[in-house]
């Protein structure tokens, strides 16, 4: 299939973006890496009248550390995230997650911000953002605002982004001493969207986990923070019984939605298996 005709503007400043949004309204669409948008246009699922290319926007580039915050520009490509020593040190979870996304060709074009703005519930980046308690920096003609990941993801491809908004950057608390980040997913083929995935953070010491956050993806309409499961692991050294309790508690955290390859029951089972594996990995400091 071929996309229907559209206009294209490569902008140099945020003001230009806002002006174009003012002119075109919701007929305009930002294009970042194009790895989701372009196939959607080719299949005519999306038919924007105007594409706003943000690849030259200074404000959306770069990875920097400001004190206890890591700031990642929305237009940072996966490949840059993966090779950044800063990210590896300050957000090991992200560093480990990138190779799980698609394939090299897609990772060299797709962007961090594009994935977050797209909010595919099976994607790795939104789950990591939630696990890492990231804060989205959003700008529009009126000014800038910050939205926590927990409030940002609102449903299937739904975010707190309003028409005219640009996701500018993401701020992530720098990993404190001993803070682990682990991500695992179950895929039938390397690079596929996960049947079920789990991004987790937590500190392990003496067989105990403190402050773990378990975020599942591929199970619902958005990344899901499993708080009940985390509570089941809260007190004392973690035993196989604790893990079993946490696995059982997942039923209270979410009821998975099925997809064409996996029924809800399969996903629920796989989520329990993943939780067990990820807790073990966290405890092993891997």
């Amino acid at each position, binding site marked *: 299939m071929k996309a*229907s005709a559209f206009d294209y503007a490569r902008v140099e400043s945020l003001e230009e973006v806002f002006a174009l949004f003012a002119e075109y309204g919701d007929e305009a669409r930002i294009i970042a890496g194009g790895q989701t948008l372009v196939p959607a246009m080719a299949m005519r699922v999306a038919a924007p009248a105007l594409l706003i290319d943000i690849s030259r926007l200074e404000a959306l580039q770069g990875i920097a550390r400001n004190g206890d915050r890591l700031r990642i520009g929305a237009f940072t490509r996966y490949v840059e995230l993966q090779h950044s020593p800063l990210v590896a040190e300050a957000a090991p979870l992200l560093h480990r997650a990138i190779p799980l996304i698609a394939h090299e060709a897609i990772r060299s074009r797709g962007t961090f911000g594009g994935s977050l703005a797209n909010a595919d519930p099976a994607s790795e980046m939104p789950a990591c953002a939630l696990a890492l308690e990231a804060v989205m920096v959003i700008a529009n003609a009126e000014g800038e605002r910050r939205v926590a990941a927990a409030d940002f993801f609102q449903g299937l491809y739904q975010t707190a982004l309003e028409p005219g908004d640009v996701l500018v950057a993401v701020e992530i608390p720098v990993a404190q001493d001993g803070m682990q980040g682990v991500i695992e997913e179950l895929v039938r*083929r390397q690079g596929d969207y996960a049947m079920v995935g789990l991004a987790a953070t937590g500190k392990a010491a003496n067989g105990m986990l403190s402050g773990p956050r378990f975020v599942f993806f591929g199970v619902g309409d958005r990344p899901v923070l499993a708080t009940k499961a985390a509570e089941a692991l809260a007190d004392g050294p973690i035993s196989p019984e604790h893990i079993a309790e946490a696995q059982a508690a997942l039923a209270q955290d979410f009821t998975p939605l099925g997809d064409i*390859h996996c029924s809800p029951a399969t996903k629920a*089972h796989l989520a329990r*298996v993943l939780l067990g594996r990820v807790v073990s990995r966290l405890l092993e400091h891997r």
Partner: protein
Amino acid sequence: MSAEGKAIRPAATGYIGQPVPRPNARRLLEGRGRYTDDMVLNRMLHVAFVRSPYAHARILAIDTEAARAVPGVAAVVTGRDIAEICQPWVGVLGHFPGLKSAPQYPLAVERSCWQGEPVVAIAAETRAIAEDACEKVLVEWEELPAVVDMQTALAPETPVIHEELGDNLAFGLELKAGSPEDAFAKTAVVVEETFSFGRHTGVTLEPRSLIADFEPGERRLTVHHATQTPYQMQDVYARHFGLDEEKVRVVAPDVGGSFGLKLHVYGEEMATCALSILLGRPVKFVADRLESFLTDIHARDHQVRARMAVSAEGEILAMDVEDVTGIGPYSVYPRTSAVEGNQAIRLMGGPYRMPNYHGVLKVVFQNKTPTCQYRAVGHPIACGVTEGLVDMAARRLNLDPLEIRRRNVVTAEMYPHTSPTGYFFERLSHEECIAKIEAMMNYSSLREEQARLREQGIYRGIGFATFIEITNPGPAFYGVGGARVSSQDGCVMKLEPSGRVRCSVSVTEQGQGTETVMAQIAATHLGVKLDSVTVLTGDTQATPYGGATWASRGAGIGGMTVLRAAQALRGKLLELAGIILQRGPETLDLREGVIVEADTGMARMDLAELGRIAYFRPDTLPPDFHPDLTVARHYVPQGLPFAFTNGIQASHLELDPETGLVRLLDHWVVEDCGTILNPLLVDEQVRGGVVQGLGAALFEECLYNEAGQMINGSLADYLLPMASEMPDIHVDHVSTPTQFTPLGAKGVGEAGTAGAAAAVMNAVNDALAPFQVSLAQMPFTPERILRALGKIPSS
């Protein structure tokens, strides 16, 4: 019958058996391929289709007004418009008695019978404009009940798709040999299972494409077409559009894979030609991936209830199978959709001595994409059922799976041998193949390792599949049934003035290396260097008439045309050299492109000199001597309806009982295609075929919902096997040349696909054995495995 006396083997093997790389591989890798879509003709239009959104629906009205008004649109045509210039077709053949189907039109006329069936065709300046216009066509539909489940397709309450046919049974067949009832009544062990083979499709890298270019002045139609079978398509276009056959030219440029799916007649192709005829302009159609999933033929989709009677010693006594297969709403033209089922029930038990057999086949209509021949037609079904049952019997009798096969295969002294379903085997090599694979995979230590790992909670499985493959089919395949599908082929070979050799052959190339193999045979039997031979394929205006490439016949049959032509041309060249050198031609020889004295090997003249004299100074030759430096030879497959090949495959895998995921560790194949013309290409045929079989075993399945909508028709959702999931595929050979041709080569194109899925199935079940569960539904998805293990409730 003794075939011994017929052996005519050249003493020197020349290039035969050498791992000659494909010269076109580098060109294609460098992006210099010239595929149909790379071609741009003057005034060319592009076509896009409005398709049925329903599995079954009546067309009440079509409003094309707004679409016609889109700037850049040249024509908007409906099924009725095209029916005026194109005869409909019916996919039946005389040698399948009772096979029925309904007339099929390029575009649906009154009803659409599957989701994706083309309904309106729009030709425009660009494909994007044609698609814009498609969005403006309004079709008023009345949705009709769809026949989705093949198991209930024949039930009285199920609506009949084509009322005039009476029911949804396209074809039925019952085969019986020996006395299976007695065998089942008396035997010690009966194993029984219902096997399901998911519906899947071919997924060629290059999608279906063509440019139809009709020239109204002389009523000439040239079709640049990504096809396997240029002459078959020439015949179809000429007959269905009422054109003179010699004025229809079909040219296949580079073709990016075919696997059987590029030899069927599709509505889109016919509609594209119709538009070119109506408009007098070239029209291009290139299927996009979404269209490919809905309209390329699908394959498999079989459910087989099967049982096997086995003696206490593990001797296979009988099989009894009932195969139900759903083929979509039409039998595909011109080869029909009865072939896969027919082959499936005839190949059952093929490798074994089994004396008794009962097989029932029901080929039913349903409202899904039509199915037809795809690589290894019927073989994976027969192999899966047979090999699955053999493993069940082995488990029941506590026999090693290799041992039970060894006890049952047709043995060396039994050839020639006829199977209970009437297949004739000249000579197969099951015992040698089994011995070879056992050594190759280090079987006993693999079993030891498996036992050791099981104690650590690691579940590995080893599975085997013995197989036979039908290759080199003769006229019995289609011709006798009335199909204008040629089973003979031809080669024209000529000496160029430069001393080089050009040969044009009717067999075709889609990436498998046909041209390379033809050049090897030509160079060998002519006595010239390989790089002085150029091979041309795929043009009805430039090559002799022939059946082309399908059913693993290119090398075995096409190769014989080249061998015969090379021998004939060699005779002519030596005759000419003899006249020039004033010696008897029998005292001369042609070696590496040089005329030499046969006894001493002394060089006398090269072919360039011969060419110079023959073409530019024939005045120096004796009066009335006319050098014939172009020869044509054809070849008709001799002796047997098919040349059977055989082999065995083994799969080694690890199954995670918590997640149901399967990791393929290794795959081994030992196969016997007779003379190995080119080991590189043979091994790649086997590997590529295995990968498609592994796809069927673990990944590929066209999923449909209850309304008959395909729900995974994209490369994101239809899982193809990818490199990272593929194991190392180790290939070895036994070589039992056929005595019916001096070449000795049989086919190899489908061997890998024939047995790979069955080997994986048996390996999966071997890994699951400690849990006392097994699976017989392909593909073996994590969900199906978890369900079998009781980790999730069965649906």
